[in-house]
Structures are given as C-alpha cells and as structure tokens.
C-alpha cells in the first residue's frame, strides 16, 4: 500500500505530473475499495458502519464547540472580553477526551444490532459443537448437525457426505431442506474437483468466489469446480478433517436472507466442522465396536454351544435311548400277547396303543439323527483329505439330493470352464455341503413358486467356479428362489435357526454344518448375498491342490 501511496510524492521529486499524481491516488483508492468489496477482504458492512459512526461522532465533538464559538461569539465577548475563546476551547477539550468513549459505546451498540442474528446463530453453533461428542448414534448425529445448521443459520438446505471406506467415494448420509426438496447427488466421486480442492486448501470454499474467479481467470479447473458445486446446490462447502484424512464434507445452501457468508461465519463453520469430525469419528468407532462386539458375541456363543453340545447331546441321547427302550418293551409286550383272548374294545385299544408306541420309537430315531447331525462336525474329523473334482462333487450331491427332492423340477446349470484345479478336501464332507446347498436352494425356489405364483417361473441353480488366488477356488452357487428376508440374514448360520416350515422338517443345522465344514475343516470361506423375492448367491472359497506346496513352504518357514 505504501508503494502505491508513494506516487503522491512524485511531484516532490521535481516531476510535475499534475494532475497525474492526484489521479494515481484516486486509482489506488478505487482499486482498494474494489478489491475489498469483490474479494471480501474485510467485512464491508462492518467497515461502513464503523466509518459512519466515526464520522458522526467526531462531527459532533468538533462541530459543537465550533458552532458554539461562532454562534455565540458576540455573547461570549460581552462576558469574557478578549479571552472569550477559552470557554469553547475547554468545551472542545472535554468533548475530545470523552469522544473515544462515546464512539466505542455507540459502535458496540450498533454492531450488536447489526450482527445480532449472526452472533446468535454463531453461539448456537458453538453450543451444538460441544454437545455433539455425546451422541453415539451416527444417524442421529448427522441429522442433528444438518438440522441445527439449517435452522440456526437460516439457510435453504444442508447436507453431509461421509467418506466410504470401501468405495472411497463420499456418500450422502444426511440432508435437511428448509422449503422444498431438490434432487441431490447421492455420492461425490473420489476423483472429483470438489474433493481435490478441499484436500488442497483444507478450508471452506464459497461458491460465489469460485464463480467470480472462474470468470476472471478463465481457469478450466475453477470452471469444473463451479459446475460441480452448482450440481451439489452448494453455496458453501466445509471440509471435515481428522488428521490428514477428509472424513466428511458439509454442503450448505444459500442464506434465506440472501446475505453472503462472512469471514466470521466461515471461522465458526470451521470450528463446527472440526467438532463434527471428532464426533463422527467417535460415532464411527462406536459403530465399529458394536459390530465387533456382536461378532465376538456370536463366536463366543458358538464356542459355548460347541462345548455344551457334547455334554448335552449325551444327556439327550441317553433320554432318547431310555425312551426308546421303554416304548420298545411295551410294544413288545403287546405284540407277544396279541393271541390272548380279549374283547373287541380292548383289541381296538391295543391297536391304538401299539400305533402310539411305534410313533414314539420313530420320533426317538429322528431325535437321534438331529443330535448326531450336530455333533458329527463339531469334532475334528480324521477323515482323509484328497483331490476332489468339482464336477464329480456336484454329480454326487445331485444324486444324493434325488432321494429327498424332485430334481426334475429345476435346472442345474454348470457355468465353469473345464480344467479347473482340483479341490483339496474331504469328498464326503464337501458332498454334504453341496447337497445341503442344493436342498436349500430347492426349498427356496419351491417357496417362491408357491408364494409368488409368477407365470413362466423357472427354478434354476447356476454354479460358477474359477481359480481365485494361487491355491484357492471360488465357487458361486446362485438360485432364483425366494431369498432370505433382511431380518433373517444375520441369523442363518446360527444353529437351530430355521425359516422352513416345521412340516418340511428343517433341523436348523444345515447352514451351521456347512459353515463348520468349510471354514473349520477346510479352512475355506463361505458367505452369501440374498435379496428377498429375487434369489440367493452363496460364495464359497476352497483350497485347491495347487496351494499345497505353498502352504508347506509357509508352515516350514513359520517353524523356522
């Protein structure tokens, strides 16, 4: 500024530029004003207010003594003679001393009035910031942030986008509209200009500034940023950083009053966003912790069930065994004494009792099957592992399934290339796995057929397979059955959980056993994706014989 102002001294060095020197001064002042207003270097309304107050106060301070001196000169001369100027002088001194105090008092009042709204919402936001850390539920937290911001700052809308750990995109997680809703993009792409800019400057971005600069500098990057901000309906974008990571983006619409965001606003929003960042991280941590806890709880439950299963099954088995003996002996007594003389009524009664006892025996046998099914795989299997061919495995599983279901009612499509590596596994156990899955898929497809009654519905199982990593194979078994309801999806691997009607006699052990066989006995992986009304896809990863050498090397290395 000083160098610009120095043009004023040019005439003093002998260069008579009149009236140019003066013009330089005017140009300099004009430029300063222009830039202050355009780039909001200062809060313009604040500057104007302060200037007006200053001018008004000092006009009075200086004006009153002068007016007094000039207006009352005659009267003063009459009373004070030659020293008449003393009294206006005293007045001037007093007023000049009081001046700054008056000025400050008026200024404070005026600013309070001027920034009343702003101060109010800024304090609301500060309060909200401190309360945020206490909210552990992520949805509630985000909802509270957008609600508080929209309401207290009185803006058209505000949204929060959260960083998605998997896709690296930022996903819309909360939104609030003052009036009507507008269509908002659900995601911000990871390579978008908006994110790049936020990561670079780590500060709020104001749309009108971007717009202005894009126009002034004809910069393509700025124009792209402008377009993207306008697609987001963003007047202001505030980043939320935790350490070096941009975890969230807050998007805000225009103020309802039409005013621009001031520097003060931006400062408050940065505080808010810092606090929000911490709160979001907190909530995220809490959410993760709960998921881990649930997982642990499930694992623990499984382990407990494993231990209990052993003791319990013996107890139950013994009871069933005794029950079978009791029924068997009674049945035997009846059968041995059939030739005795008895009335027709007694004979009829004997037939009924005989039938009842037979049913008891059958139930005992079925109960025994359930217990055996549970225990069969909770123990370490000593059975041999060997080379298993997928094609052959499916053949055998289908053969097994034929005894239980009508395989002719569905088609089984094998969608894999020949020449896949052989699986390293136990044939009987894997046969059990595939039998169970085909059986489940069949039930699901029959359920869809009877529930939805779609015309032209063709039950179909598709089995895909491919080599995934070195030493393992990924198998996908897809059916177009009824699918699994969202509320059941958590539970389907839990023992004794069944969605099948009791008439179909699901033991609730099928998937539990599948998981045990694959994950514990074969060190593989099994998970599924399902949509109710559409179908289910089960993903299985199993080791192949190709991986054996690799494993051996690794285990030798571990021992060494």
């Amino acid at each position, binding site marked *: 500024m000083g160098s610009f102002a120095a043009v004023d001294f040019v005439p003093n060095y002998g260069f008579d530029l009149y009236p140019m020197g003066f013009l330089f001064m005017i140009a300099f002042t004009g430029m300063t004003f222009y830039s202050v207003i355009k780039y909001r270097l200062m809060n313009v309304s604040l500057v104007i207010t302060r200037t007006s107050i200053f001018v008004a106060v000092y006009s009075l301070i200086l004006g009153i003594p002068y007016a007094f001196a000039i207006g009352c000169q005659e009267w003063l001369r009459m009373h004070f003679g030659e020293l008449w100027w003393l009294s206006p002088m005293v007045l001037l001194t007093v007023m000049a001393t009081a001046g700054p105090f008056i000025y400050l008092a008026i200024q404070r009042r005026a600013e309070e009035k001027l920034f009343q709204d702003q101060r109010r919402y800024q304090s609301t936001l500060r309060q909200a910031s401190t309360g945020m850390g206490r909210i552990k539920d992520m949805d509630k937290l985000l909802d509270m942030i957008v609600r508080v911001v929209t309401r207290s700052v009185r803006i058209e809308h505000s949204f929060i986008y959260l960083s998605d750990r998997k896709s690296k995109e930022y996903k819309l997680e909360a939104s609030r509209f003052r009036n009507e809703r507008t269509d908002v993009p659900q995601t911000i792409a990871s390579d978008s200009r908006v994110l790049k800019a936020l990561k670079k400057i780590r500060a709020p971005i104001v749309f009108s500034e971007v717009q202005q600069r894009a126009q002034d500098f004809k910069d393509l990057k700025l124009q792209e940023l402008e377009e993207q901000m306008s697609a987001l309906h963003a007047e202001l974008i505030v980043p939320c950083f935790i350490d070096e990571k941009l975890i969230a983006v807050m998007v805000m619409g225009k103020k309802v009053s039409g005013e621009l965001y001031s520097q003060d606003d931006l400062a408050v929003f940065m505080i808010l966003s810092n606090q929000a960042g911490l709160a979001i991280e907190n909530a995220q941590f809490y959410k993760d912790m709960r998921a881990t806890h649930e997982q642990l709880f499930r694992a623990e439950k499984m382990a407990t069930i494993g231990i209990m299963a052993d003791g319990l099954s013996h107890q139950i088995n013994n009871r069933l065994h005794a029950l079978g003996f009791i029924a*068997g*002996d009674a049945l035997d007594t009846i059968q041995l004494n059939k030739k005795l003389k008895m009335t027709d009524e007694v004979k009829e009664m004997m037939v009924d009792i005989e039938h009842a006892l037979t049913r008891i025996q059958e139930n005992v046998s079925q109960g025994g099957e359930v217990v055996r099914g549970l225990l069969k795989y909770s123990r370490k299997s000593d059975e041999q592992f060997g080379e298993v061919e997928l094609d052959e495995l499916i053949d055998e599983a289908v053969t097994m399934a034929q005894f239980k279901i009508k395989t002719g009612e569905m088609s089984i499509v094998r969608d894999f290339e020949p020449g896949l590596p052989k699986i390293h596994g136990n044939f009987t156990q894997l046969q059990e796995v595939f039998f169970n899955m085909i059986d489940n898929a069949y039930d699901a497809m029959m359920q869809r057929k009877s529930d939805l009654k779609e015309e032209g519905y063709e039950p179909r199982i598709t089995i895909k397979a491919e080599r995934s990593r070195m030493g393992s194979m990924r198998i996908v078994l897809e059916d177009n059955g009824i699918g699994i309801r969202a509320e059941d999806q958590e539970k389907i691997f839990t023992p004794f959980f069944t969605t099948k009607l009791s008439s179909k006699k699901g033991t609730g052990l099928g998937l539990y056993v599948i998981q045990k066989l694959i994950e514990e006995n074969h060190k593989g992986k099994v998970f599924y994706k399902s949509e109710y009304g559409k179908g289910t896809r089960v993903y299985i990863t199993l080791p192949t014989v190709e991986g054996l050498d690799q494993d051996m090397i690794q285990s030798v290395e571990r021992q060494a």
Partner: protein
Amino acid sequence: MSKLLIVDDEIDIREFARNYFKKRGIQVFTASGGSEALDILKEERPDLILLDVRMEEMTGVEFLQKMRGEGDPTKVIMVSGIEDEETINQARSLGIIGFIHKPLVLEELQKIVMKELKQGA
C-alpha cells in the same frame, strides 16, 4: 439258558431291557456300575455283556480293561452315544464284538443279541 449282563447307570435301561429279554427266555443280570458288574461276572459267568461307554463310577473302557486284565474273555457289545475315534479304537483293541449307537430301537438290539447268544450256545 443264555445269560446276559447289562451294565448301564440308567435305571430305565436296566429295567426295560431286563423285561424285554426275560420275555425271550434269557436270564438277565443288571449292574449299575463297573465294580458291581465285575462281581456278577465272576459269580454268574454270563455269555454276553451289553456295556455302556459313559458311566459315572467307571467308564466302559476302564471296565473292559479290568476284566480283560483278569483274563476274562466274555463277549462284549459296547453301547455308545457319539464317541470320538480314540475311545472307539481303544475299545476295539481290547476285543469287542462291536459298537452300537444310541438311541437304538430294541428290536434291532434284540437281533444282534440273539445272534450272538445263539452262536455262543
């Protein structure tokens, strides 16, 4: 008359199995534990023993070790729940006719028992 010894700590099993085999003209002895069974074994010299694997006082395998240790060659059928391979192998090495799994329908047990007793007679 053939003699059958049933060793089981379940009173219902002892009672109903005894009833059942008595009706078929078999002399049935029962023991609720290993030491009682060893006494009966010496006094009565049964033709066949039905031996439960899991018992409180003495396990089936321990009983088997003791009796074989005393040089008793009596035929034994083991009645088990779901045992692990180790127990099965141990019992097999001590000389048994076979394993039958609980729960068992009496009629099937009867077939096996009758076959063994007939061979012995």
